[in-house]
């Protein structure tokens, strides 16, 4: 059957066709019509905005209206990279990304392992655990803003009634604490995603592997670190990739919970970009910032892709 296929494909290639030639051959118009909707969508919502943003980043655009703006070359990029506020935002973002991604994977692993055991009412736990992830980020942010409220928040009530803290605190009132509190809200929301990825991976691990290890005299810890964890690595890397990129772009939870404050303590690069572009109407600088963020994320993506390639597993 393979030979037949080759025979059919060959002539098209030897005719010196290639994709363009084929496009205009007999099936051409049909192919064009079939591809058109997706081409329009891809070009309209991905390629055009990408190119337009790149173009904008080279001009001193200071209004939302189309028009002629002075060309500044790489001036916007240079200006951004010289701004202290930008590097502060990079610092906050990096800290937020590392903290949330690490803890989400860590708690995700614990919850995943728990949900994989023969608990009674396991289905109930599995459904409850997914709830935070199903919540829109805006709602999640608003909810945690209330929980952390300095005057009548639930966290203050809980901690004072348990005599852990002597009096109410403004959890979002100090730059450093606020950044950590926003991270808590993000971890609460995104840990279920990690847990479910890990649960799915755990269910693909053949039970006889662990059994064989037990027969060989390995304890629970030993078989976890020598068998389960290595087999989970590819999944963990995927979670890392997804969460790092999402965390690096974090915007909405900051917008709802702190507005970047206090004293810019929770300002991330995406939030800074928003403020520059839409509040200050420095669209050129905003576009440059967007590209700088994209380069950062590309950098992470390349590292992770290499990790993924190395981490292939065979049972």
């Amino acid at each position, binding site marked *: 059957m393979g030979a037949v296929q080759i025979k059919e494909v060959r002539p098209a290639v030897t005719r010196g066709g290639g994709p363009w030639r084929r496009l205009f051959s007999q099936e051409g118009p049909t192919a064009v*019509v079939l591809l058109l909707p997706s081409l329009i969508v891809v070009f309209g919502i991905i390629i055009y905005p990408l190119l337009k943003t790149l173009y904008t980043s080279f001009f001193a655009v200071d209004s*939302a209206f189309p028009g002629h703006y002075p060309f500044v070359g790489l001036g916007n990029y240079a200006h951004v990279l010289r701004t202290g506020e930008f590097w502060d935002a990079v610092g906050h973002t990096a800290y937020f990304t590392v903290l949330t991604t690490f803890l989400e994977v860590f708690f995700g692993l614990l919850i995943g392992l728990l949900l994989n055991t023969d608990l009674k009412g396991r289905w109930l736990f599995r459904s409850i655990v997914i709830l935070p992830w199903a919540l829109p980020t805006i709602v999640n942010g608003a909810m945690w803003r209330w929980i952390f409220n300095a*005057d009548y928040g639930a966290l203050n009530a809980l901690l004072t009634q348990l005599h852990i803290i002597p009096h109410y605190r*403004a959890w979002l*009132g100090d730059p450093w604490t606020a950044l950590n509190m926003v991270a808590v809200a993000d971890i609460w929301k995104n840990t279920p995603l990690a847990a479910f990825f890990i649960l799915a991976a755990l269910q693909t691990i053949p039970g006889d592997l662990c059994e064989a290890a037990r027969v060989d005299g390995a304890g629970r810890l030993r078989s976890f670190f020598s068998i389960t964890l290595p087999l989970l690595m590819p999944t963990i890397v995927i979670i890392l990739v997804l969460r790092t990129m999402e965390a690096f772009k974090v915007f909405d939870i900051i917008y709802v919970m702190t507005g970047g*404050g206090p004293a810019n303590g929770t300002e991330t690069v995406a939030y800074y970009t928003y403020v520059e572009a839409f509040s200050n109407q*420095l669209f050129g600088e905003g576009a440059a910032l967007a590209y700088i963020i994209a380069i950062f994320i590309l950098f992470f993506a390349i590292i992770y892709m290499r990790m993924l390639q190395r981490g292939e597993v065979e049972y």
Partner: protein
Amino acid sequence: MGEKSMRRGTYTRGEFLGLGVAGAAILAGCGGGQSGSKGGGTTTLNALFMQQAAYSSDNVNSMTKAFEKQNPGIKVNPTFVAYEALHDKIITAAPAGSYDVVLMDVIWPAEFATKKIVAKTTGRIPPGERSKILGGALQAVGYKGDYYGFPWILDTKYFYYNEDMLRRAGVKRAPATWDEVVAAAKAVKSKGIIKYPLVWSWAQAEALICDYTQLLGAFGGRFFDGSGNPAFNTGGGLAALKFMKMTLDEGLTNPSSITSIEDDVRKVVSQGQAAMALNWTYMFALANDPKQSRVAGKIKIAHTPRGPGGAPGVNGSMGLAITRGSQNQDAAWRYIQFIASQKIQDRYAKLSLPVWKSSYDKKQVIDALPQVVPVAKKQLNNMILRPQVASYNDFSHELQVQIQLALKGKKSPEQALDDAARTTASILKSS
């Protein structure tokens, strides 16, 4: 579609092309629904308002219904967003022309006029009418001698106090100076009535600049000197920040102030967790409403306290502007004229006082807020403006951050304001 091809479950090439064209037509159809479409003799106006302080959305909706009843040819769709989202929404919607009428804060005319977002309305407001409106309200739509819209909300921050708490602390009358406020706060605190007598809107937001401006005025400061250079880092501007920091350090100000905007202040006061606060007019009715307040009837209003530089209130007025992209400028103006008319404003005075001078002597308005109107009559004549510059948001953001750094003790007040002044100078130079 051919019966034969249907039966086979496949399509000929020609039928496919037909489907593609139909699909494209549907896609093109999605782009419709432009604002201000004139169908069947009706004009549709889209208007953008805010969801907090001043008129409530119920107020605006019923004003709008009254307008539509009087103008059967015009339909109005009001949209409400949080104040914090209003500016950015106006800007991003401007190129698409999504809104015909937008609510514009007193700090935006410079930016919106320079960037051609709103239309000039100087010719639409006859000089005779201007003289009937309070000066502070007109400033909300004025820039370089022209007008961009029509004043609608006239507001400033008043001094609110919990009469019961002050009385229990032995304070007989409303504090009239900031020194008296501090003394009263100390008395309330030392009697153990509440932990933090003062609450402010000092979150990293425009609300912080409003409070700071009012204090800057009281301490005799100014934002810029005669030649346009930043001057808030000296004299009254510096004294104002030092005062703010002192009240925090002495435990008189609630530390939650640093995360609060005006509505948070209202809630804390309404919960009976503060004895004194600055806030807009709207708090009076809501903090004294038994449905929303635990201290209803105890919250009194007074003129903002005096400092060495006097007792000006921050100008917190807002106007209604027509966007330049609006296809229905005349209808939009007619709507603005209706909801900003003296008749309508007098009727809805409970949450926002009218911009019209003579309203303050009318029984209908006085009856709506009998305790507020006498105070407003005085304080509305003495207001201080925040800087009227095109890059206001950039300036304000920088000042917010530096003030918060000082309040959190990360920088000295001198250092923070010097840094803010330096950045402000470069922002103004580059714009």
